[in-house]
C-alpha cells in the first residue's frame, strides 16, 4: 500500500495555504498519496478565483504586509498557488470539500472551483482518509 499524507486545510490565510500545498506536493513528489480536506476558512480558498485571496496570518496590516510578502515571493521566484494546485492535481492529489462548511456559510457548489474538487464530504470522509495515513496535519 502506498503511504499517504492527509491535511485538514482549516485556515484560509495565504501563508498557510502555501504550507499545505507545499507539503502536499512534496508528499506526492516523494511517491506518497496526498489528500487535502478543505474546511471552514480554508474552504473559502476553493471559491472561484479565491485561492490567493486570503490575508497573511501575521503582519497583514490591511493587506500591505501581504503585498510586501507577495513581492518578496515573486523576487525569490516562489511558485504561485495556482501552479501549486495544478501540480497537485496533475500528480494525482485529492481535494475534498467540507459539506458542513458549505451549509453553514451558504456556499453552493457552483461558487467553487469544481474542477479541482474530487469529493464532497464530512468528518467520516476525513477519518477514512486519515486512518491509514502516515502524515496527518491540521493547518
Amino acid at each position, binding site marked *: 500500500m502506498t503511504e499517504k499524507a492527509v491535511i485538514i486545510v482549516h485556515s484560509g490565510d495565504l501563508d498557510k495555504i502555501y504550507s499545505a500545498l*507545499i507539503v502536499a*506536493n*512534496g508528499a*506526492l*513528489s*516523494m*511517491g506518497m498519496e496526498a489528500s487535502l480536506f478543505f474546511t471552514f476558512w480554508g474552504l473559502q480558498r476553493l471559491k472561484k478565483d479565491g485561492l490567493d485571496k486570503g490575508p497573511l496570518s501575521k503582519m497583514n496590516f490591511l493587506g500591505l504586509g501581504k503585498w510586501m510578502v507577495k513581492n518578496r515571493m515573486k523576487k*525569490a*521566484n*516562489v*511558485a504561485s498557488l495556482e501552479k*501549486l494546485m495544478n*501540480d497537485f492535481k*496533475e*500528480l494525482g492529489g485529492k481535494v475534498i470539500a467540507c459539506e458542513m462548511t458549505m451549509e453553514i456559510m451558504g456556499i453552493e457548489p457552483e461558487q467553487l472551483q469544481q474542477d479541482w474538487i474530487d469529493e464532497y464530504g464530512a468528518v467520516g470522509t476525513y477519518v477514512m482518509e486519515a486512518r491509514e495515513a502516515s502524515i496527518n496535519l491540521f493547518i
Partner: protein
Amino acid sequence: MTETNIDVRGETCPVPLVECRKALRKASSGDEIIIVGTHPASKKEIPMACEAMGLEVMDIDENEDKEWKIRIRK
C-alpha cells in the same frame, strides 16, 4: 529508451521536486530523466525521493556555479 531533460535552474521549493516527479510519472521503465537546477536542498532531496520510490540515481554532478545535474533511471 528515451531521455528527458528538465531545467529547473532558478526555481525554488517545491518546484524542482515536483517537476522531477511529473517527468518520472510520464516516463516508462528504463527511461532516463536528467534534471538540472540550482536550489541547494533539492540536490539532496531529489535523490531521497528516488530512493523512497525505489528508483536508481545514476549520477549527481555539481559545477563551480553551484548548478547541479542529476541523472535518474526509471
